[in-house]
């Protein structure tokens, strides 16, 4: 799939934002006064920017409100509702905390739960797609939530927890990649099922020499060689480097560096998340099976 910057920004930023808000809801970071204000601002800022950037992906952002109508069936619609509900609940929680100095724990827990459910809903936009076997797996929501929690904890300054989570998440991501690599083949969709023309079939001529929406959007390909290299870099930058930095004697500079590294790595991982995702429509466009 085409790794659209708006979607990478959306998933990375909203994940981090909701992760941080969840931590705030659970009281894993200071919620009051200036520090609280800064944390909440950061959380809402990240989540809000993420959500807004998702609209950049829309052909008609001015109609974005219509996306709230189909919550009964559509994960995107559910995500929209959940994001709003989350922002509302978390907003109330934050307002009480910051303005009135009142920390209403159950409200915080509700906000935290909503945050994680929202991230889960975001991930289900991708995870529900049978057409993209790499995504169509429980590991997709698990990792999204994992990233949100880890990022949140990291932002919240929970050094030890963050280091542990980083390690766990790194391993999980590694395993997920490995498993994902086999999923297209395992999905049962092949050029033979796509065409009904038997096993020894290949694309001879594409339907058009010009591009189209599908070739631009879905038939994106990263060379296997590049992907492996990028994955290694991502593992180092997103997990190993920040974990090591956190294990060093604490300083704000190092912690900030850890956050920056993790976020940079996460951007790369999300880039790979899209770029490596093979859509079965590629079978009609001569893309070799994974």
């Amino acid at each position, binding site marked *: 799939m085409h790794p659209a910057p708006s979607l990478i920004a959306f998933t990375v930023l909203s994940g981090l934002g909701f992760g941080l808000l969840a931590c705030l809801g659970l009281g894993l970071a200071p919620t009051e006064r200036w520090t609280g204000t800064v944390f909440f601002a950061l959380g809402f800022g990240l989540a809000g920017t993420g959500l807004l950037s998702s609209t950049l992906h829309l052909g008609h952002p001015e109609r974005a409100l219509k996306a709230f109508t189909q919550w*009964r069936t559509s994960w995107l619609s559910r995500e929209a509702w959940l994001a709003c509900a989350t922002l509302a609940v978390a907003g109330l929680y934050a307002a009480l905390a910051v303005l009135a100095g009142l920390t209403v724990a159950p409200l915080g827990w509700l906000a935290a739960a909503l945050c994680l459910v929202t991230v889960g809903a975001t991930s289900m936009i991708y995870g529900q797609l049978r057409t993209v076997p790499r995504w169509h797996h429980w590991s997709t929501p698990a990792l999204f939530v994992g990233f949100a929690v880890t990022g949140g904890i990291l932002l919240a300054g929970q050094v030890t927890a963050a280091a542990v989570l980083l390690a766990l998440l790194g391993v999980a991501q590694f395993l997920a990649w490995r498993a994902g690599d086999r999923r297209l083949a395992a999905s049962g969709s092949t050029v033979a099922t796509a065409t009904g023309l038997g096993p020894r079939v290949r694309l*001879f001529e594409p*339907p*058009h*020499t*010009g591009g*189209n929406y599908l070739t631009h959007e879905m038939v994106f390909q990263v060379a296997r060689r590049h992907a492996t290299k990028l994955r290694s870099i991502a593992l180092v930058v997103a997990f190993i480097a920040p974990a090591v930095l956190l294990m060093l004697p604490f300083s704000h500079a190092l912690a900030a560096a850890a956050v920056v590294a993790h976020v940079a790595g996460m951007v790369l991982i999300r880039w790979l998340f899209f770029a490596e995702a093979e859509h079965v429509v590629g079978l009609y466009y001569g893309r070799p099976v994974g």
Partner: protein
Amino acid sequence: MLGPEGHRRTDPMPHRQPALDLSPPVSDEVRKTTCYMCACRCGIDVHLKEGKVAYIEGNRDHPVNRGVLCAKGSAGIMQHLSPARLRAPLRRTGPRGSGQFEEITWDEALGIVAERLAGLRRTAPEKLAFFTGRDQSQSFTSWWAQAYGTPNYAAHGGFCSVNMAAAGIYTMGGAFWEFGQPDWERTRLFLIFGVAEDHDSNPIKMGLGRLKARGAKVIGVNPIRTGYNAIADEWVGITPGTDGLFILSLIHCLLKAGKIDADYLARLTDASVLLDEDPRSETHGLYLRDADGKPQVIDRRTGHLAPWDGEGVEPRLTGSLRRAGTTHRSVFHRVAEAYLDARYAPETVAATCGVTAERIRRIAAELAHAAFDQAFEVAQPWTDFRGKRHETMPGRPVSVHAMRGISAHSNGFQTCRALHVLQILLGAVETPGSFRFKPPYPKPATAHPKPHGKVRPGEPLDGPHLGFVHGPADLLVNDDGTARRIDKAFTWENPMSAHGMMHMVISNAHAGDPYPIDTLFLYMANMAWNSTMNTSAVMEMLADKDADGDYKIPFIVYSDAYSSEMVAYADIVLPDTTYLERHDCISLLDRPISEADAAADAIRWPVVEPDRDVRGFQSVLVDLGVRLGLPGFVDAEGKAVYADYADYMVNHQRRPGVGPLAGWRGEDGAAGGRGAPNPEQLEKYKENGGFWTAHIPEEAQYYKPWNRAYQDWAVEVGLFDAPQPYLFSLWCEPLRRFQAAAEGKGRHRPPEHLRAQMQATMTPLPTWYAPLGDGHADPVEYPVHALTQRPMAMYHSWGSQNAWLRQIHGRNPLYLPTALWEKYRFQEGDWACVRSPAGEITVPVAHMAALNPHTVWTWNAIGKRRGAWALDKGAPEATKGFLLNHLIHELLPERGDGLRWSNSDPITGQAAWFDLRVSIEKVRAPRHVYPDPPPQASPVPPAPARVAQKVRP
């Protein structure tokens, strides 16, 4: 209820969906005219909204397409709205080829042209060379050229498929192209040779669809398996240039097994005609004739000589006659001798053709099976030309179609003849289930005019330019042996060049050989690009100057509708309208739209008015004819006879009562075919959907060349003036006359250097010889055959300006067979340098397994020059699209005899596009294809960035 397999999460909420307008008005008005995206000429319904073209679909009532349209036809709206449309007459301001022009008025443009042409006409009319591409108004443009008096006129047929046309007409009085068709309803076995698309493109597809629906078998003979060959039940991936051998081998097998239609051969063909076998005779090898000149047969009833068409005569197929010490035998004797020879045995030809001997035998057996075991009779009595009544029409359900794949080779004429001989031996022409002619065919070669080329300053030419020669006496050569025509058609080199040789015009004019010309006047032929051989050199020739700095071809006038590559080389450009903005006439006088069971013609008319300062070319020619005072265009007082082309279409009479349009003639419009001009004629055509048809009576539907009812009907509707039954010619007398001349017989003798080749190629029975290029392009150095194919969704160069079509074919790879792909270790995205003796090109490659192992190919005419067609300079057509034409020279390389032979069929002059042999080398991918001529300036405004065309929501 859900379908039985329905399984789904149920929705507790009631299903809501928007209310749609399911019956929106389709348009304000439908105007019915004729498509022009190709020469198939389908009927179209043009839907107008607010006076603008909104949507085009096929006309259901139209005889050609019955409602269907091809990809181009449905995309006609984008052709009509193309940004490359020329806007006004142009005068060149920069050097030739630069594309720099200024717009001028029509009066200026026509004034300049008329003045120049008037001067030439007074002194040397041959200094005007007027050539007209894929002209659909040839009976009119040739008439203009004849009135002007230049011998130098032809349309594109010479480089297109004259082999097919001429071989058909010389052999059976009609050809494939769109001049005949398989009996789609009744045929059981259909063989298609060398066709990717063809002129009859929708009818062939419709026919194939019907065969498929009926389960009839289709065999495709073609080195490449795409399109029609892809759906063929069996594919014969023959090696290019060897079809003749394959066909003669089929004939060998059939003869050996006696699987021929002896009765048909005896009665309806020259197989029973006796040949003069006296070697001392002046007519040695020609038909034995009586005092009236009638070919002689042995009448089975009497055992004596009889004229072929004598009342009640029963010709003996194997007749012979001993007279004055010589035995004169029937043509069939020669057929048997020639083709039972072991050189046509399947084992002998298999390796050359790339088809196994078993396969050849099996296909021969299938032909026999279909023709004879599946034969049937149609209960329709008819009477033949000898007065014999037949109670039924025996059917032979085998049909054949072929086109440029066999004809665009230097052995194409004989290959096409061989194919017709195969059909005839099976009795599979004009019989139910086989191949059928469409009016005005059948029409034997002898009923066509001969070529004319006598120039008299200030006077019209002595007759029609093009025609059919019957021997050396008909050639257009001067006493000193030089050619009368600039293209050297009808000379010893290419004596039977019935369509002229347009591909030689520019190089001959540039060389001043046989004589220099002054004005080259072209109409809709992209001769600076895809319709020419040796494109790079031709571009140079068009812009080449002599020592005085004058252009070697002094003056070029060109009519195009769009900003093509050729436009850039014109001095004056006469902008044509699009096909929806003008009158046109699809006439029984040249290439009508008839069907096998009906004569039909059609018109185009301006369904919308042009929004630019452009004029229909034919009307422009009328205007020029008047300005020049040409006979037929002005009356005794010098006043214009026709106001414009529409007026000509209605009021011109070629012969009394016979005009360009056959429908609704006579004062009251009641006559079909013959009748006085009818001022309401065009209105009648429009009311009828743009066309006219006349159904052939039932008893005249088959056996047309010999069927009295057909002959009488044809006279009645004005196709000819008297019945003209004839015999099919297995034995081609005109060829024998040339061969005899090469043997040293007769008054007219070919030049010495041509004699050996003429004797070898001009055999009166079809023969096979290796493509002439093979003797020049060293098969070791250039081991690979290189071909082009027509893409179904593109028409030559015109399609690229079409926003929809260019997305389908915006660039073209060179397809390589598996063997070559693996040999050179190519991978997706690679490029190759392709060389021939004439040049080299560097192009992208792709892999194809369903391909003859010695052949590479690409789609034709996708490559474009930068700056042309209002395309962006980075358009893929220019950066990744390419032409093979750079590799195809109009002359063969010198071979040690100091001569450069034309790269054409030595009989007809047909351009041998498909003789090309190349070598291939893998190269590093460059940024764009090579050669890459400098961009031409665009005489039209830049194209819009987006298209989202809708007249009304």
